[in-house]
């Protein structure tokens, strides 16, 4: 809440934006991994990482950073398994944010 200046409406807005855009960002990472394009992996993972950092999600941050680093170092041997971890962590974050939108205690 501090990040949004204790503005609940703004928090709802940015959760909506994130939930609407995160699936495509994850798809971009997946497509990049499957294509074996290191630069695309780095960029797509970096973009998703930046978006998730707005919600201070250390797990998504670390999972995306792992892929970003693999892309930068042009070493994608473990990228598919790293993508699996990222997808799982992102799913948890999205579920948490959806519960917040519904007003459930988290």
């Amino acid at each position, binding site marked *: 809440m501090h990040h949004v*200046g204790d503005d609940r409406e703004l928090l709802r807005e940015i959760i909506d934006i*994130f939930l609407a855009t995160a699936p495509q960002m994850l798809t971009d990472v997946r497509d990049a991994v499957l294509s074996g394009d290191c630069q695309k992996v780095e960029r797509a993972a*970096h973009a998703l990482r*930046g*978006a998730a950092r707005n919600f201070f999600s*250390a797990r998504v941050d670390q999972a995306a950073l792992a892929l970003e680093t693999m892309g930068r170092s042009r070493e994608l041997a473990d990228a598919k398994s790293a993508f699996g971890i990222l997808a799982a962590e992102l799913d948890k974050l999205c579920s948490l944010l959806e519960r917040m939108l519904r007003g459930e205690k988290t």
Partner: protein
Amino acid sequence: MTILIADDDRVLTQVLSARLQRAGYSVVVVYDAMQAIMKALRNPPDAILLDVSMPGGTGLLVLRRLKNSITTKQIPIIVISSSIDSETVATVKSLGADEFLAKPPDFERLESILKALLCPERVPGASQSWSTSTSQMPGRKQ
């Protein structure tokens, strides 16, 4: 005072826009590097918040271009990035950025920097020295 935000992160631009407007600034948002250059050259803002990694060229390209233009070289540019490695920070500094903040930036810190850069005489102890401020992710060693 007008702030140009150049970042493809829709969430962060929404947060920064809302909070800067609430603080009394006018805000213009662009989502890629070329838009950032065009907007800054056509309508120079009072300050720029610039992401390093954007579509259409990098923020470093924007930084280099704007700091080499007579029209825009005096505009304070605060670089915001989730890449906080020393190499990126050094590059950003060498290209003339006025400040570097890790994503997501602490708003109070950002506002303080903007005040210091835009109205330095109003901020006691405000210096021209370049500092690096990085916010830490919870539970993560940096």
